[in-house]
């Protein structure tokens, strides 16, 4: 991903490590959209996502000297963003149980006419479930990595993913009648 997001990434990286403001801004411009997208998919509001994006890039610029090129630059930036977004969820005292959401939106099979599109269904998921779905299914993190980032067990991550897919399946009207 680095190569098409950041032209001449080696030079930009070297200059960014030397503290060159133009190179640091080039890093920001290159990764601004994927970082915001990740933050927005996890955070409750656009404002929260923008704040987390800002914190992410502040950290990226301060710590760029510690990036050892053992993985992709995007992978490194993304791990900072994911970690900060999850931290924001914790700070906002996210709801670990999601019965509340079920209570607010009880599903009935005859509600098929209320099918949502995927974007709306994803947004409707409880925050933790949504974060797990996004990190696992879209960003490609393993359950072990997600559990470590969330300070939870692997089983927790797996069960959140399964429950999230159960809900998405229902809300999208995708259940196979059998």
């Amino acid at each position, binding site marked *: 991903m680095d190569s098409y997001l950041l032209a001449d990434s080696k030079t930009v990286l070297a200059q960014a490590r030397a*503290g*060159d*403001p*133009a190179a*640091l*801004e080039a890093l*920001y*411009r290159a990764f*601004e*959209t*994927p970082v*915001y*997208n990740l933050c*927005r*998919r996890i955070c409750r509001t*656009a404002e929260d*996502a*923008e704040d987390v*994006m*800002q914190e992410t*890039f*502040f950290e990226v*610029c*301060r710590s760029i000297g510690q990036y050892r090129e053992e993985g992709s630059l995007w992978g490194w930036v993304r791990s900072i963003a994911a970690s900060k977004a999850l931290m924001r969820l914790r700070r906002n005292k996210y709801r670990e149980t999601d019965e509340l959401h079920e209570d607010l939106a009880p599903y009935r099979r005859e509600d098929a006419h209320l099918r949502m599109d*995927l*974007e709306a269904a*994803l947004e409707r998921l409880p925050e933790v479930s949504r974060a797990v*779905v*996004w990190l696992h*299914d*879209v960003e490609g993190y393993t*359950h072990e990595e997600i559990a470590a980032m969330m300070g939870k067990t692997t089983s927790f991550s*797996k*069960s959140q*993913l*399964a*429950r999230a*897919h*159960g809900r*998405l*399946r229902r809300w*999208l009207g*995708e259940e*196979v009648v*059998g």
Partner: protein
Amino acid sequence: MSHLSIEQLVALREPGVEPGGQAAREHLEHCAHCRDELDRLHQRVARLKALPSLRATRDRWPAVRARLEAERRARYLRRVRLGGLVGLAAAASLALALHTRPRPAGPLAAPEPAAATEISQAMARSRALEQAITRLDPDARVLDGRTARVAQELEDRIAAVDRQLEMNNLLGEEQAREAQQLRLWRERVGLLDALVDVHLTRASKVGL
């Protein structure tokens, strides 16, 4: 016939075989319903990956840059304070050296060596320039990118001179140390002069 649960279907996408995974795979071979469910799961994940990227409505780079700049400046000010301490330490060691140096016998005291006088003058000039910078209050100004880079470069060079001064105080033969000290203090004054110019130019541009 009971079908696979959503937990089992989701687990089937994981690499390796989880406990019960083999039985689930065998079930899948004979159950069209569960194969359909698994296909839908795969399609849903593909659609999630294909969702359009969301974009921030506001540019947050100016805020990131301002915070970085504030932090860098705070580091610089800490170094300047350290530089001041180094200067005081240098002055103290110099004064001690002059005081304890054996004087030639005779009714007239030997004149103070020129190097020591010049070092004292350079140190005083250095302090005056630092005070001038403080009065210009660079923290309260937003610098354009080019000016910020020039200021940063000068501040980094001043920090490097401060480190050399610190090392110079610890090592070397006295006369060589004084000569080196004088050279470093002159360099420090030159750099601070340039830094004052940078901030003065910026201040005059914005009419302050």
